[in-house]
């Protein structure tokens, strides 16, 4: 069956996020000084075939670790749900 996985990739805690820093500075300048931290990540959506959820999760995990995520700098989490027949 078909599954929809939504993967969130973010920098590991403690890894500098230059992009987040620049956005935070700009927000503060614009008056949003209540914002103390900004981290920029990526959201990646996958449609995949798998017999059951466990297999789908294993496949997504493999995809994340072999390509989508740079384990040196990033970590990830994902949600998975069955994709309705269209």
């Amino acid at each position: 069956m078909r599954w929809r996985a939504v993967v969130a990739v973010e920098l590991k805690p403690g890894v500098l996020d230059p992009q987040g820093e620049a956005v935070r500075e700009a927000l503060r300048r614009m008056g949003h000084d209540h914002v103390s931290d900004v981290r920029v990540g990526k959201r990646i959506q996958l449609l995949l075939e798998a017999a059951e959820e466990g297999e789908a999760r294993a496949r997504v995990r493999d995809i994340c670790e072999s390509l989508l995520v740079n384990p040196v700098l990033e970590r990830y989490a994902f949600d998975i749900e069955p994709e309705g027949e269209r």
Partner: protein
Amino acid sequence: MSLSASPEARWTSVGLTEEEYREIVRRLGREPNDVELGLFGVMWSEHCSYKSSRKLLKILPSAGERVRLGPGENAGVLDIGGGWAVALRIESHNHPSAVEPYQGAATGVGGIVRDILSTGARPVALLDALSFGLPDSPRDRALLRGIVEGIGGYGNCLGVPTVGGETVFHSGYDGQPLVNVMCVGLVRLERLVRGRAEGEGNVLMLVGARTGRDGIHGASLLASRGLSEGGEDKRPAVQVGDPFIGKRLIEACAELVEAGWVAGLTDLGAAGLTSAAAEAAGRAGRGVVLELDRVPLREDGMTPYEIMLSESQERMLIIATPEGAGRVEAACRRWGLEAAAVGRVTGDGYLRVRWRGREVAAVPVRDLTEAAPAYERPWRAPAPVTPEPGRGVAAGPSRGGAAAPSHGGAPRPADPSEAFLDFLSSVHVASRAPVYRRYDHEVQTNTVLRPGHDAAVIRVRGTRKGLALATDGAGRWGGLDPYYAGAIAVAEAARNVSCVGAEPIGLTDCLNFGNPEDPHVMWQFRRALEGIRDACLALGIPVTGGNVSFYNETDGRQIPPTPVVGMVGLIEDIERLVPSSPRCPGALWLLGGGAVSQEGSLWQMWREGRVHGQCPPLDLSLEAAVQALVREAAGHGWIRAAHDVSDGGLLVAAAEMALSPEIPWGLRLQLPEAGDAWTAAYGEGGARVLVVPAGPEAERALMRRAEERAVPCREVGRLTEDGRVIVKSGRDAWVDVAAERAARAWKEGWAWLL
């Protein structure tokens, strides 16, 4: 970080040996605490202390009329006249780039730029000497792509043009690429700053990015040990570069230096605050006290150990007078940078660290810096190989990548024309435009000769002067004979800048070697240094400093010994520079000569996937004479183009001159009657330069001067407008192809790689 109480774990946890630990206890007269041990660990690491190389590096000639700052400073500085000075340095970022290619290369660029900033100079050019494994595996291609992207990603954003460098392939770098980055800056002599913590009571200002946990024991420890397969455990040490802060540091430092508010300036690189503070204090013979509670932190709960050892990027240490500190802070704030007074200069010669109201470390500065251990590591020459008849003693089998000499070799290709096209389109020879087109090489609008010539040339704005910049690495020769490699790296880099008409005035060297605890590697290192020394003396070029990178080994596999030279040449009149390809066709002359051979050549590397045999004979006096002749010819306007004959031999050099214009020239090349055509076409060796004389009168003048200087000089062919590349061996057309086809092979050979 809490270090275990077990004594052995104490020294191994910071990468020291038991003897080194005992030495620390002896010098302090007590056991060091955890923070102090951390300071010793990083400062006595190979990376920071140069403990295996420091004594040997002294053999390099570093004096010269133009030298204003030499080895031991953040960067070398050369006087170029007219009140201007050029700052130069090259540095490796091999280990970080092997672990995380994009960030490793990016932070390599950032780090060397801040070294140049430390002299008060504005960075004006970057060059990258890259060595990769043969791009047969996806992993090696991914390393190549990541590193090229990282260099562009950082350098482009920074607004410092990347004007040159080189990219070489050799199986000895499989999985362990070399990333050597050179930066050049310009500074008015009266604004030259040093990395010294002068003036008791002066304030240490930490400027730029906040301090986080990144890279604790990163560069220092990583570069002081080899890599092992599955180097996952070393990964958390990787730092992330922020070129946006790097760019603002350039602007803020330039403003502060211009205003004269800086008493001393140094960057935070390997070993972070520890090394910056200790070295600045050490150079001035002073002490410093650091107040860690004042260090702006990016993460909560950082310990003194972590703050002192953090290798967070984009930080500089400014030494300011107490009155100037406020102005430094204001100028930094204008650029959106934090500046915190984190310490002051003292007179007691100690590095003292205070945190939460108490002293957490107190160590004599000398013991961390100049009095750090220096070893004479044992070295051993390889077992002698029986010389072949009529030859000298071979340099011995290489343990660095290239396999032991074999006398078989690949069969000769059947068709010279097809072989020529294939070689041109190979990764070894094909145009590097696909790489340098990814780097902004024109920002700052000073780039007069863009990448693709023998050397890049940037002008010194407001003067008629130009700087010619080139790098040359010699890893391919290193495995055969490290002495030859050291000498030829200097000679070819000098030849490159001479070819554009510049006088080589100083160099910076990056010495990439394997494990110095291996006596054979130590022998390679010594021989390479002797080669560099002899070539520098023969050509009259001082070494202004550089970098040593040891432990380039993976699971005991050592890289080929790879000396890399970054050369700066000076052109007094920018109008007199010479490109490597002429604007209009003409005769092709070969200046210089010497024995050539296929052994160790790029042709051999391409044909067999490795190099073996002996290096060609070295003739440094011919080298000096050829270079002087080319410079003289350029200065008089006798030549319209000049190109060094090196990688790929005579035919490749001639082809590059013909094929690099948008519409390629045709080529006629006559190979010598005697000997094997393949060797004549692709063999390497000697001191040779191809030039295009500017006309009959120039030809006569050139011929006369060549005779006076005892430099062989003869016409070997022409560049034409007939669209054919025809190479003759004797009377026969040996290679005959359409220039358009050859140009396509050469220009598009690389497209698939990136």
